[in-house]
């Protein structure tokens, strides 16, 4: 079944049925997702897997209450059961709102252009890419012990109808290539990771790209074989461009999501217009970056994605809203209502979040740092938005001595507090770059981009073993 041609009458009837005992907003989210994943390990393409999942969810908002039901069945019986489940949950009924006619709004297919739809490419060609990645990784050095190379593509079609009269169809294709490489010397084992991904088709990854991604991962692992344990203590930290963007994502981004704001569970609550970062810091969340991994034309509530200025010159200027939290706050939704699939309630989520580039160069910043820690790539991190405390693992780190990058360091963690760290940023370079990741929150994973240019934090706690 093509969900773009879904029976509008059934959508409308489902919305009316959901609202019949009360509630002030109802929505139907229909999804058809087709995925393919290839994984190579130990030199073998293993257990190639893929499939199709279809389903529909009905959501009803009544005041501050959310009622949600979903089923894997796209037929009338499944929709009726879901509508009845949410309607039955409404405790104080005051009759339904009128449903207005649904006019179809289609997403602009040119927005995140797909030149080569992945489903038109033979799986064998995709398998060639992971084999090429494996070859490149193993060619990087005799100490490469293992390479895990992955290719994945997804085509997700969604149809979103609501009682405001919106009817949005969005067709999203994402492609990603990843390499994790293990290097071993005696008892020392180190790993390196690299990835490329986008809201784009098969054109994103050709054989040269696959080789380059795997080689980069292999070189990281080899470099780290020579690493020594990272020191412990407070010192200047230079965060490299690209992967360093996880800093902003964790240290600040989660605290700007409007659900944390609404519950007072964010250090950024009540601070609109206040200084939350150094004056040289401006930052954005942008769900509309062309072909960005974290991009799509509409969010998962049918709101067009946009570029939102969240920090301007060090002052807080914006939060990230879904419909529910925007309504509560009397603000406009910002296109940040996202869900992993029809099985999840949409919540405020980041898309591509980044600190804007500055004017320095990475070399200037290193040269201006007599002694410090250079975090080239981060392994991931976590934050408690309520306190702003965060922690990152450093996948690739180096010592900075006398204004030069010297010994590779392993086992380092960066620990700090969001506002503290942002106010201590004292240099930003122009070498802006974005990396791809999957962000987890409330048990839901969504694709996100994290970006920044090389920047320096005047002082930060490094936790190592040395």
């Amino acid at each position, binding site marked *: 079944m093509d969900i773009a041609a879904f029976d509008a009458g059934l959508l409308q009837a489902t919305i009316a049925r959901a609202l019949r005992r009360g509630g002030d907003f109802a929505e139907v989210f229909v999804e058809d997702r087709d995925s393919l994943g290839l994984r190579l390990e130990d030199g073998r393409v293993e257990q190639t897997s*893929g499939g199709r999942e279809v389903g529909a969810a009905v959501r009803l908002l009544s005041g501050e209450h959310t009622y949600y039901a979903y089923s894997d069945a796209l037929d009338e019986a499944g929709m009726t059961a879901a509508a009845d489940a949410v309607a039955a949950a409404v405790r104080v009924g005051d009759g339904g709102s009128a449903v207005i006619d649904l006019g179809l709004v289609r997403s602009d297919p040119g927005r995140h252009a797909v030149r080569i739809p992945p489903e038109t490419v033979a799986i064998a060609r*995709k398998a060639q890419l992971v084999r090429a990645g494996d070859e490149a990784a193993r060619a990087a050095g005799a100490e490469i012990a293992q390479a895990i190379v992955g290719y994945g593509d997804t085509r997700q079609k969604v149809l979103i109808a609501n009682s405001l009269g919106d009817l949005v169809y969005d067709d999203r294709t994402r492609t990603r290539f990843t390499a994790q490489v293990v290097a071993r010397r005696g008892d020392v084992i180190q790993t390196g990771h690299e990835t490329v991904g986008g809201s784009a088709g098969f054109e994103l990854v050709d054989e040269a790209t696959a080789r380059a991604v795997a080689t980069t991962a292999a070189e990281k692992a080899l470099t780290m074989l020579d690493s020594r344990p990272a020191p412990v203590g407070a010192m200047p930290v230079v965060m490299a461009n690209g992967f360093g963007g996880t800093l902003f994502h964790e240290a600040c981004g989660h605290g700007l999501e409007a659900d944390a704001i609404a519950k007072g569970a964010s250090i950024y609550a009540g601070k609109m217009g206040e200084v939350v970062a150094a004056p040289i810091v401006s930052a954005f969340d942008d769900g509309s970056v062309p072909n960005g991994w974290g991009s799509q034309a509409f969010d998962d509530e049918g709101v067009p994605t946009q570029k939102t200025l969240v920090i301007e010159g060090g002052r807080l200027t914006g939060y990230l809203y879904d419909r529910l939290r925007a309504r509560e706050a009397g603000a406009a939704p910002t296109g940040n209502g996202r869900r992993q699939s029809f099985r999840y309630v949409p919540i405020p989520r980041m898309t591509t979040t980044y600190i804007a580039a500055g004017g320095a160069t990475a070399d200037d910043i290193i040269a201006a740092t007599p002694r410090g820690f250079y975090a080239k790539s981060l392994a991931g991190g976590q934050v408690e938005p309520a306190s702003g405390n965060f922690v990152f693992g450093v996948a690739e780190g180096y010592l900075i001595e006398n204004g030069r990058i010297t010994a590779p360091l392993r086992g380092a963690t960066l620990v700090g507090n969001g506002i503290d760290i942002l106010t201590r940023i004292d240099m930003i370079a122009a070498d802006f770059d974005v990396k791809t990741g999957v962000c987890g929150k409330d048990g839901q994973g969504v694709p996100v981009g994290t970006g920044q240019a090389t920047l320096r934090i005047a002082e930060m706690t490094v936790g190592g073993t040395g």
Partner: protein
Amino acid sequence: MFDILDTVLERACAKGAPDVEVFAERSTSRRIKVYRQEVEQLTAAQRRGLGVRVFAGGAVGHAYTSDLSDGALDAVVQRAVDHAAVSDPDEFAAVPEPVGEPAAVHPFDERLTRATDERRIELALSVEAAALAADPRVKTVEDTMYADGDGEVFIASSAGVRGSYRANQCYAFAYVLAEEDGQVETGYSYTVGRALEELDPAACGREAAERACRLLGARKCPSMKAPVVLDPFVSAAFFGVLSSALTADAVQKGRSLFAGREGRQVAGEILELVDDGTLPDGLDSAPFDGEGTPCRRTPLISGGVLQGFLYDTYTGRKAGRGSTGNGLRGSYSGLPGVRPTNLVVSGPVTPLADIVAGMERGVLVTDAVGVHSGANPISGEFSVGISGVLIEGGKLTTPVREVTLAGDIISMLTRVRALGDDARWVPGGSILTPSVVIDGMAIGGT
């Protein structure tokens, strides 16, 4: 449902893929979130689907579908066949054979089927109320959730595997924010069971509040090498990461730090670590795993000595032995992978109060941030952010935060010196563990 599975087996055979396995599930679940004594969110879910694994001369192809219509069954079989065509063959990959009788485990409690939404909401509200009432410094309960699930799984294969079972479970969770002098600290707790009657909402709310409040006033402590007491929540997080290195998959692929250490001392002598998929109160207990192999008890570490690893059918064949019943599936859309069922950490215990009283200087660790990102299960190195309470002169004194705990997993395990008398189940991996005392850890602060 078995008629659908049989149809899939027949279609695969007709498409020239006689070696095939099909796994299906159908389930219902409820999730209720409350906030400020109101229902914030109620989710009712129905889920079903199946996954097909085709073995073609040692090459494996997998495909899944949530649509069980006749046309979709045909398409899913064709995709599994197509996927097998691009996978590389492996001499050890073959359809799992039937192995003995399913374990005598009944992970289903009839009482949960009688739960009403009213009762579930009441339970969630009482968790939040208990947290709010526990201490005036509780600012808010950011997240209070009740959830339950009731699902059936079915498996059938061309090798003659055929089985199904029904399982259910429920839990409640609270995440509390406490505030004093402008400082906010957080704490959480769970209660888990197979019936509402088995949950203790008051204890869950109270404990989450206590865990948040006892961190108020926390600050950094000086860097030091000192013993730490990992409370059960933190211990479970570490053993969860560690367990991935105890799978035969990690060993055979050269990414286990335990490879080649069987029969050797890898942990303090008091430590026992067992995987047991047959425990009546274990949330991950089941009659059989995702390949139809009976669940069982597998010792991993005994007396600090590494006993062995966890296997699924494939890794078992490769090692010239059988599966330990650890070929688990996350859902119908996932392939079976080698994972623990319920992990149990045990050994001779010491009252927790005596452990603290006997410690001149150390840290009781009650929260660790970044265990999954800050710990590398391949190299064994980790560095995580921790919160907890300082132990000085045999007493719990000031709370600490924004400090790091770093080391490597093997040397940490070998320094396990004592276990507390406070063993409990921690969900999220289903781990039963007491507090664990570890000597000489690197704590990074000021």
